[in-house]
């Protein structure tokens, strides 16, 4: 859908046109669902969260500012929603604590980059490895590479410090590499 058309749908949606919300749903459901799926892990939870995001859209869209591209805004609303959900699951404590920023200095040239593994393993493996990550790694990684958020934005969403986010993302990537390397060695 081109910009102008999206604009039109958005302005109708802001005027409470029910059909416009239907169109937004058709357009963005896959992306929103994908994000929920990665953040929440379980398919059913992701379905629920997706419908909640869209059910609340008539209200939340009033807070939408045109300065931000709509998809980006919608994804950030979605990730907020999912993180709320996760917190409600009371995994909060386990989620993002105990990841001290100091313990970071790692030897250079340590793990083999993902790229080399990927040529052998295929993207499906990577996906599985991501899905298998603990939440504390999976969520920042998803926000970074799926929602395309900056470290600062992620830090704000997850109430973490910026160095903490950097570490979590770094560790997440390391773990994915390790999982893939392990799978390759085991195969």
């Amino acid at each position, binding site marked *: 859908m081109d910009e102008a*058309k999206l604009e*039109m*749908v958005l302005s*109708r949606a802001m005027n409470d*046109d*029910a*059909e*416009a919300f*239907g*169109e937004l749903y058709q357009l963005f*459901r*896959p*992306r929103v*669902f*994908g994000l929920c*799926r*990665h953040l929440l892990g379980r398919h*059913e939870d992701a*379905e629920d969260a997706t419908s*909640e995001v869209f*059910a*609340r859209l*008539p*209200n939340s869209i009033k807070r939408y500012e045109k300065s931000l591209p709509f998809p980006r805004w919608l994804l950030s609303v979605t990730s907020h929603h999912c993180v709320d959900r996760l917190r409600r699951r009371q995994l909060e404590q386990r989620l993002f604590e105990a990841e001290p920023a100091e313990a*970071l*200095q*790692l*030897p*250079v*040239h*340590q*793990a083999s*980059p*993902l*790229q*080399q593994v*990927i040529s052998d393993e295929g*993207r499906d493996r*990577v*996906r599985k490895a*991501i899905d298998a990550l603990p939440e504390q790694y999976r969520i920042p*990684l*998803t926000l*970074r*590479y*799926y929602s*395309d958020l*900056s*470290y600062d934005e992620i830090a704000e969403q997850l109430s973490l410090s910026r160095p903490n986010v*950097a*570490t979590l*993302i*770094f560790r997440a*990537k390391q773990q*994915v590499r390790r999982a893939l390397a392990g799978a390759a060695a085991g195969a």
Partner: protein
Amino acid sequence: MDHFSELTYSMYADGELPGPERLRVQQHLTQCAACRAQVAALEAENRILAEVFRLTEETDAARSRGSIGRSLLITVGSALAVALGLDRLVVGIERLAPGAMSWVNPISLPSLQGVLFNNALDLVREGPAMLNALVTVLGLLVLGAIAAGVLRHFINRHPMSMAIMATMLLALGLPRPAAAMEKRTGTTVRIGSQETVNDSLTVSSDHLQLDGAVNGNVIAFAQTARVTGTIKGDLIVFGQQVEVSGTVEGNVYAFSQTVTVSGHVEHNVYVWGQTLQFDKDGRIDGDILMGGDTARLRGTLGRDASLLCGTLEADGDIGRNLQAYTNAATIAGSAHIAGNVDFHVKRQQEVDIEPGATIGGKTEIFPDWKKHASHYKEAKFYYWQAIWMAGALIIGLLLYWIAPAFFASKLDSGWALLRSGGVGFLALVAAPIAAIIAFITLVGIPLGVSLLVLWLAGLWLAKVFVSAAVGRGLMRRRPGELPNFAVPFIVGLLIVFVAINLPYVGGWLSFLIILVGLGLAVLGVRSGMKGRAIA
């Protein structure tokens, strides 16, 4: 020169290093080939991660589309399995106490077929009148589906129970308890007169000659099938010629060109084929249901004969009623029919009841069964329809003004249609049941009354809801245009008006429209309430 940490490079590749540090890294990279390579690899890694995430989105979307079809399949499949399971359960009880359970088991294949067959007969005459029977069958399927849904929910939560459930269903669903399946193939399969097959038997061959005994069911795909021996269970045949001169203790299901029964069938005979020849020496203790061209009934039939055929010759004994939709019927002088005779024919003179024939009950002949008296020629009809439309229009507009939620659901895909139909059916069945339950509690009588009133209103308004949805679907607004309800609604009303007045199918369409309309209303109100609850 010191290398930086991998974390630093990772942040650098993400474009997240603060200015001064970034410059230092850049400077180092100009001098260090190893680190340059590492950063390049990290950047490539980022691209791959982004790509994998994007791919996931697409496959997830595809998967959730596929899952609609899959869950539908699972639901229908489990509904059938549950129905079959219940059937087997009743069969089991029946073995312990023969005859005791026959009335309980509405799902058993024979009665289901009976209902379906009778429906097919009635459809020819008057569609809407057969809703009762149809609702019975659909209701059973829906019950099965609900059970299956609960089951599925349960299985989702407890995956291990899947295996147990599957095993149980399979065990219940297998044909006749303790009867395994034996399979035979070849050009000619012969079960000699001394031979006894202890299991059920499937045969796939050109010719089947069964002179011996089979203790289970026989399922045969054969050009010719001759049974001179004994079958303890059912005989199910797909073939050109079927002859039963032996004994079948169960039912006979024949999808065949010619079916000849000169032996003894202890239950029912179902025939879909060209000719049914029920010979003089033959005996069928149950019913005959036949759809085909020629039926010759010369033997002794224990219960009813229901036929949809071109020609009927009745010359034997019929224990109960004879009902036929046919072009020509002859009842010979030697025939005995204990019950009623109902003939639906094109012309009265196509029925020939010879003197001497004994008919215990009433004889009714309905000529012109394929012709409907046309009410389209009467002005009165259009007058009433116009009033109906005007009323629907006014009520629809009022309702839209008062409670737009009723019109919130859309029919924009086949899936939406199916969903609304399904929900509508549930509402159609569940509301009166709930009302009855409310009545039984006495305290709930007011609730029951309001429920019934709502239900009746819903039945009438269903057409209004469907009209609105159809109109809106056809006259889809372009973005930016002002919302309009009335014009698409009138268009929809016209379409629905024509649809429900179509000859033959109108009654059916009307029923479907009621289902879909009820569903639309329920779904619309539900999503309206949900939206409000969240907001």
